[in-house]
Structure formats: C-alpha cells, structure tokens
C-alpha cells in the first residue's frame, strides 16, 4: 500500500529503518568514542552494593564468570549487569515482577499506562512463560558508589510501585513465587555471630 505522505513513504520504503540524518555525521564518533573513562567492573559494583547493606546479594550465572549481580527483596529479584552497546558500557538494571498475567487482553494497555508514569525504565511483556519485566539503563563509565545507589534505589521504588499495581490489575502471580516453585530461592542468611556467654557474676 502506498503511503499518503512523503516522509511516511520514506520510512516504509526502507522497511522501517530510515536513518537519522544526524547519524551520518556521528558515525566517526560512534565507532571511535575516544578515551572514555573505564567503567567499574562487576566486583566493584557488588562490593558497593554489599557495603550499602542491599539485602541478599548474589552472583548471577556461573561462579567463575558471573554475568551480573542480583539482590533479593521480599517482593522481587532485582538484577544488575554490565553490557556493551553502541560502543558504550551500560549499567543495565532489570526486574521481572509479574508471572502469568490472567487478563491477557488488558495487559498491553496497562503496560502502556505504566510506561507513561515511569520516570526511569520501561515495562514490557516477555513470553514463554508470560511475565512482565522492567528495565533501565544508564551509561556506566562515570558511575560511582553514590550514583549507583541512587539509580539502584530509584529503580527499586519504581518497580515496586508499578509492579504491585500491575500484579493486581492483571491478576498475576509474583515472579518471585514462580522462581521459588522452581527451587530458585534467595541465598541463606549468614548466621549472626553468637555472643560470648557472660561468665562474670553480676
């Protein structure tokens, strides 16, 4: 079908991959971004989370080469990964909150509404099994402990706020419960150190 307007024609004719005019000028910048500061590694990020008292932090993936860090909250599992995308290192925060939403038709408008309210991150639906997830990415090159905790906590608040609402309105289960049913559970809590028995007589 022919598009009625010229710009639309341009978009349709190249299969939806019309290029930004400005990108041509930026190719050089993208392919050789120059001397950017090195992003902190996963070990450093985990150390910052541990030091801040984030609950039940554990490695994701194989122990020899972990792909990220996860933290277990009472409502959800929040993960952090480092990825390279378009020449930059990105800190990727993710959380799957809802499992098997029962109101299939209503899910998409509810996600669209949640996305309008999100200040950081996006909600989307994943399939097999159907679940609702949220992601947020920031450039990782300049991240320090203050920025990491700020971004982490802000994402956690938004996920909980919209995740609970989405769970109720789509009549979903919690993904954390689905994980528990598969045997994936938070790491056991470290035992508290026993106090030495008081021997002195009062």
């Amino acid at each position, binding site marked *: 079908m022919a598009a009625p307007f010229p710009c639309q024609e341009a978009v349709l004719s190249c299969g939806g991959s019309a290029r930004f005019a400005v990108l041509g000028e930026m190719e050089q910048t993208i392919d050789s971004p120059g001397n950017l500061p090195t992003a902190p590694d996963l070990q450093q990020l985990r150390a910052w989370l541990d030091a801040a008292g984030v609950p039940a932090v554990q490695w994701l993936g194989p122990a020899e080469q972990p792909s990220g860090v996860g933290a277990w909250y009472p409502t959800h599992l929040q993960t952090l990964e480092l990825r390279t995308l378009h020449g930059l290192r990105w800190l990727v925060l993710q959380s799957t909150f809802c499992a098997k939403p029962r109101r299939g038709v209503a899910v998409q408008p509810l996600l669209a509404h949640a996305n309008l309210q999100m200040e950081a991150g996006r909600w989307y639906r994943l399939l097999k099994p159907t679940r609702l997830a949220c992601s947020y990415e920031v450039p990782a090159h300049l991240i320090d402990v203050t920025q990491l905790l*700020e971004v982490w906590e802000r994402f956690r608040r938004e996920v909980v706020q919209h995740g609970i609402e989405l769970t109720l309105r789509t009549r979903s289960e919690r993904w954390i419960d689905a994980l528990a049913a598969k045997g994936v559970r938070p790491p056991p809590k470290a035992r508290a150190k026993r106090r030495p028995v008081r021997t002195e007589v009062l």
Partner: protein
Amino acid sequence: MIASELLTGPPWGGQWPADGQVLEVPTPAPGPHWRVLRTRLERMGLEFDPNLHDELGLVGYTLRLRNAQLGIGAVQRPSGLHLALTAVLCRGMEREGLAVAALDRANRDLRLGQMLFYPGPPAELTFYATAPWALVDDDLFAPYLAAVLREVEDVGFAAVTLVRGVHPSDIPELWQQLENVLQGLMAGQSPEDSPDSPPGSEPSEPGDRPPPAEPSAATRSEHKPVRTKRKSKPPTH
C-alpha cells in the same frame, strides 16, 4: 507567535533585555547546565532551537532532524538533575488499534530507553531516554546521543511501520488534506469529487449553483440500491 507579541515583550512576561544583556529565560530546571548543553550541541555542529513553553519557559532544545522531532533537555527530579531525550517518531497513525501492541513489542526489543504511546488526538509514538546528568559529561555526550539515536533507528521505526505512523513532518500536509476535505463538505460535495482543489480556494457560493432538478425515474432507479440474491452456502457433507 505573532509579531506584535514579539514587539511588546517575551511570551512568558516581563521585558526584553537591553542590548548586550543576556536574556534570562524562566525554566523548570534552572542552572548553568543549559549553557553546558547548548555548548555541547554547538560543538557537535547540530542545528537546534530553544523549546519555549508558554508557561514554563525553556524546557529543552529541539533538534532539526530529517525524520524525527528530537528534543533534548534537563529535567529536575527529586533524585537530582537528569538529561532527558525525546524523539516523536510519529504523530497520527493509520492503524491506531495496533499501537499498544507495537509499543509493547518495541519496549521488549529496545536495549535502552523506552517507547511511549500518547493516545492523543493525534496519537503519538514517542521515544524517551533519561540518565543522571552527572553520568554524561562532555566526552560522553556525543557517544551517548549517538547510541540513543542508533537504538531508536534500530527499533523505533519498526513500530512506526507497524502502525503506519504519520511522520511529524507530514502534519502540515495532513492538515492541508483535511482542509480540502472540509472545504469539499462545506461546498456540498463529497471529498472525492474535488481532491485536487487548492488549499486556499474559496468554496463556491450557494447562489452560483444551478437549482437541483427533480430526480427523474431513471435517476431514481439508478440510485436505488441493487439487491443481489444471496448465495446459499454450499452443502456440507
């Protein structure tokens, strides 16, 4: 904005500054970061305009790009200052019923940023990305902007294709077509009768038209809807 308003004063009130003085524009996120942002955009050789809201003042800069309306600005949030980037990918769409599905697919495929759907009218598909201001410095700004635009290019336009979105640059043409349709209706003609009438043409006066003749029997029969026999379904065995 009309010329008289420009002569009397800035649109947000007050007075234009004297020659040689810097114009203080109100903004919801005041601070020196606006000058920093402008310098960065100038250094990249981009052409941009200030985006001046009637009540809020300066809310960002609009970049003149070929196939998207791109806005970039600073947003003050409770957690601090953020760099925000918006790209209106289409405004108005032929298949609006697919918009929410296209949005969901795009958000799943995106690797950074988010897609938004504003129901309108006119309905919009918009890309939005935000990052704390401190995480994008002078050296990172150009690669960051390029990375975001490349992601929009990779994912965003697929959604536009799915909904057959009307590009923002096509909006004046859309209005022109709408105007033609309305003029056709006001002149008592169907829009198909005069699709090529120029946008500024005056509709003909009712007195100029000849009085409608009584429909003859032949024309009446022509207008009569033709009824055809319904075909019965083939028997199923």
